[in-house]
């Protein structure tokens, strides 16, 4: 039986897909891979293939809507859903025939109890049973005592139950967030089947790192999952630890390490990395003249010559590099950057090539979003997927170059938004509207970086606690904008996003023409003319 893989376009999904592909290869399972970037593509792909396939695997898509309702599959069709989107639609959770969810057992889903949200429609059936025979009405009717009391009670109970159900579902569906990375879930599956390989483990690491880079999970969750993966890493890589020399040219080795939270610095210059990493750029307020001065002071404090800092990291003096991390951390603490050190993993391919997990995330993501299109839509996806394979260093390096460009572009946009005061407070949320089109993934990243920078730049304490809505033109010909809502940027942020539901309600109440195409509910497309009434509704809804 051939299987259809429907894979969303994010790095975690790609990693999960790689693991599953490897597992399929082990078991000689045939499959067809279809990348889907949104609901429309997913529906089209399903319609195109539903006659040939009975088994469908959804990766990082499908969990948060009622799949049976949307896709109307035949009864002998089965959906396997591995998706980090939360909350999972309750119908998907409680369907025990056609939908199989791949979820980590210890994930706290907080799904409402079955009896609280589903109810057998016995009462109604009872009624229709009596009446459906089509016989003539009786000429006389007695009024029964039980009827009145029972029915009144039943109706009252039903109303109460329904009100409670609405409340429960509202609580459950109110916030959108992410669960365990799909790549990790898929790796768990491989591990349970004793088919886990070091490659798969690396993909699981990249999947988790993607969640962290994209700011989808809490710091707490990240650290916990890192711990889980670390055990697997030592299990798979212990043999090489004693003897570094046993490392051969075609071997790969994964290592846990405390690294600097500086984007791509090992493939860039330290200076560029400091400037284009959201954390450092926001903390030092690099968009301002004072910020630039602060950067010079920071570098001076570390005692690093500007010449060395600005040249390729690889070519820096070995003497400087030796204690670099400690030096940077020490100075960073003085400049208020206490979280510059992160727990992560790195990978060695042979002697020469070393990458940190976040390098791979940035590279793969930019390959997927490459605007310079070469060939059909899926080319980028396949390229990104390939770059995750160990043999494809060319593609990986190409991805790293693209990623640098993107980070630079994002930082420039952030700086110009802050400098021109494009971020305005709308009361219950901050709002920023861009003039130029920008890709979805980058827009999400941009919004998060912008909010971080804004929080550092503003003196208004209230504004520091607000979420952000960001808009950018989508399709000029069709006159549409894309809107992204992100949760507040606070230390204790639970990364839960209420904009999905809020967007839905605001659109409903204003009859705005919206398209909810993205797998994240908090990203919508909207007709440009409807934007102002939509925003007005959103403001009054959240005030």
């Amino acid at each position, binding site marked *: 039986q051939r299987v259809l893989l429907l894979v969303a376009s994010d790095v975690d999904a790609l990693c999960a897909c790689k693991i599953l592909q490897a597992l399929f290869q082990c078991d000689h399972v045939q499959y067809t891979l279809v990348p889907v970037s949104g609901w429309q593509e997913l529906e089209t792909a399903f319609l195109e293939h539903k006659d040939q396939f009975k088994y469908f695997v959804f990766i990082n898509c499908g969990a948060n809507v009622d799949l049976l309702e949307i896709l109307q599959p035949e009864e002998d069709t089965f959906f396997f859903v591995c998706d980090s989107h939360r909350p999972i639609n309750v119908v998907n959770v409680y369907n025990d025939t056609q939908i199989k969810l791949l979820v980590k057992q210890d994930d706290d889903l907080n799904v409402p109890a079955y009896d609280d949200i589903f109810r057998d429609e016995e009462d109604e059936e009872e009624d229709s049973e009596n*009446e*459906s*025979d*089509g016989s*003539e009405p009786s000429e*006389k*009717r007695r009024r029964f005592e039980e*009827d009145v*009391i029972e029915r009144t009670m039943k109706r009252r109970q039903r109303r109460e139950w329904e009100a409670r159900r609405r409340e429960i579902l509202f609580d459950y569906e109110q916030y959108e967030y992410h669960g365990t990375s799909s790549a990790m879930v898929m790796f768990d599956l491989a591990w349970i089947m004793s088919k886990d390989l070091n490659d798969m483990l690396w993909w699981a690491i990249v999947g988790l790192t993607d969640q962290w880079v994209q700011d989808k999970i809490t710091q707490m969750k990240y650290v916990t999952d890192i711990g889980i993966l670390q055990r697997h890493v030592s299990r798979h890589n212990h043999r090489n630890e004693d003897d570094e020399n046993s490392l051969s040219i075609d071997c790969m080795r994964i290592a846990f390490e405390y690294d600097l939270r500086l984007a791509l610095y090992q493939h860039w210059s330290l200076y560029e990395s400091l400037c284009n990493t959201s954390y450092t750029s926001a903390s030092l307020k690099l968009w301002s003249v004072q910020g630039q001065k602060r950067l010079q002071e920071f570098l001076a404090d570390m005692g690093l010559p500007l010449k060395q800092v600005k040249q390729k990291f690889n070519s820096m003096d070995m003497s400087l590099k030796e204690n670099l991390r400690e030096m940077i951390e020490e100075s960073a603490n003085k400049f208020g950057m206490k979280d510059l050190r992160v727990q992560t993993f790195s990978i060695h391919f042979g002697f020469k090539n070393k990458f940190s997990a976040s390098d791979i995330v940035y590279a793969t993501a930019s390959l997927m979003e490459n605007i310079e299109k070469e060939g059909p839509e899926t080319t980028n996806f396949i390229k990104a997927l390939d770059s995750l394979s160990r043999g494809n260093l060319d593609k990986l390096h190409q991805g790293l170059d693209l990623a640098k460009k993107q980070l630079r572009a994002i930082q420039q946009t952030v700086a110009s938004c802050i400098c021109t005061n494009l971020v305005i407070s709308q009361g219950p949320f901050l709002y920023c509207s861009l003039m130029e089109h920008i890709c979805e993934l980058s827009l999400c990243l941009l919004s998060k970086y912008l909010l971080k920078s804004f929080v550092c730049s503003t003196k208004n304490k209230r504004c520091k606690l607000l979420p952000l809505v960001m808009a950018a033109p989508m399709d000029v010909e069709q006159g549409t904008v894309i809107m992204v809502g992100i949760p507040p940027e606070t230390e204790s942020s639970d990364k839960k996003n209420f904009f999905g539901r809020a967007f839905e309600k605001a659109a409903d109440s204003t009859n705005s023409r919206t398209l909810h195409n993205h797998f994240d509910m908090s990203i919508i497309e909207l007709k440009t003319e409807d934007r102002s009434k939509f925003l007005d509704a959103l403001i009054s809804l959240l005030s």
Partner: protein
Amino acid sequence: NNHSERMRKFKNKGKDAAALRRQRAEVSIELRKAKKDEQILKRRSILFGLVDENLPLEEKRDEIIQLSLEEIVEAVNGSNTMLQLQATQATRRMLSRQKDPPINQIIELGIIPKLVEFLTRADNAPLQFEAAWALTNIASGTSDHTKAVVEGGAIPAFISLLSSPHMHISEQSVWALGNIAGDGPLYRDALINRNAIPPLLALVSPVTPVNNLHFLDLTAVGFLRNITWTLSNLCRNKNPYPPLDAVKKILPVLICLIEHEDKDIISDSCWAISYLTDGSNDRIQIVVDTGILPRLVELMARPELIIMTPALRAIGNVVTGTDEQTQAAIDAGVLAVLPHLLRHAKPTIQKEAAWALSNIAAGPCWQIQQLITCGLLPPLVELLDKGDFKAQKEAVWAVANFTTGGTVEQVVELVRSGTYSEDYLRPVTDARINTCLLGYLVSQAAEKLGETERLCLLVEELDGLEKIEALQTHDNNMVYRAALNIIEKYFSGE
């Protein structure tokens, strides 16, 4: 004899126009009798919209006071209002339990006049309501029970309570009046003569304008169901029919109610219309004139039996009328729906549909032509072939009527479709039908065709001759003789 008596009931050229269509006499009487026996036991589930949270039901349930029959009599006849209420409530409670309500015993207590008096206590709504409920349940029993309530003077009291400011009391009165009207033509007309209709209709129209019927909340739906049912009882029963002016008052409201989205309301409205059309042609005409036929045909096509059945009944009644009335039903699209109903899983629906078809087939040849054009012949053949027995009988009548009224070409079409051979040449189980049809149909058809030769050829082509010959050995003497007759008359030349 049997044959000619049946014949008189057909519509045909040169026949008595009044006797043309077959009325559904014995069938419906049978049906109603069965219902009547059943009705006391049967519990119709009706959504009780009213006695909602307004009544402190639970509190009451907690302090149920058990009273003996003697205590009830004493309290009811006493002067303490509180005790009167408690006693009435106890009475009502006994009468509304599921099993064996003590209706006779309560009547024997002689408290009905007192209960009726309580209906007039406008200052004590709970007492009014309890009394109304108790009387409703007494009236729901046998004719004697209903009689006891009516003779206690309840009719005028209930009619004036229709206008009670309390909705639950008003609804209970509607219900009680429904039970009284349902007893038969006598009490039905008694209500009509007491002018019960205007305040009843006022409950529907002025407060809730026709257009807004759809927007009534659930509470009102329960109320509206009761009103519809009571109105249907006011249209119900023959010998005599309800007075014409009463019908004319009720009809416009029924026409609105039938547009409601609630299934029970639609169903009872349809039943009411079916009662009104179950009569002479001038009664049918009043209904046809309202322009309701397209809606009835639409409802006939609904999947729900409670709607489909009465709508089909009503349309079936209409096509027993004049050619013009039948044409009105055809124009409303009845021929497009009938094929589905002829193939319906339920035998009673097949039968009713075939009955309607037989009456359309009894019309002039242009209506017969419409039957052919609209593709009614294939389902008819199927029905004859494997339908329910009672439905088969109706289908045979349809073929008979068709043959009688159709042109040469139409009859040839019928023969070709397979109906003819399958029909009267097959050894139908009912010897009676078989006999009358055999003799009658062949001669009719052949003579009308004026081309005996051609028909004989057709019959032979379809192996009919062999079948007729086989029938000569039939156990039934009449079948045998008819078959012999046919062979001698038409096929003896060879």
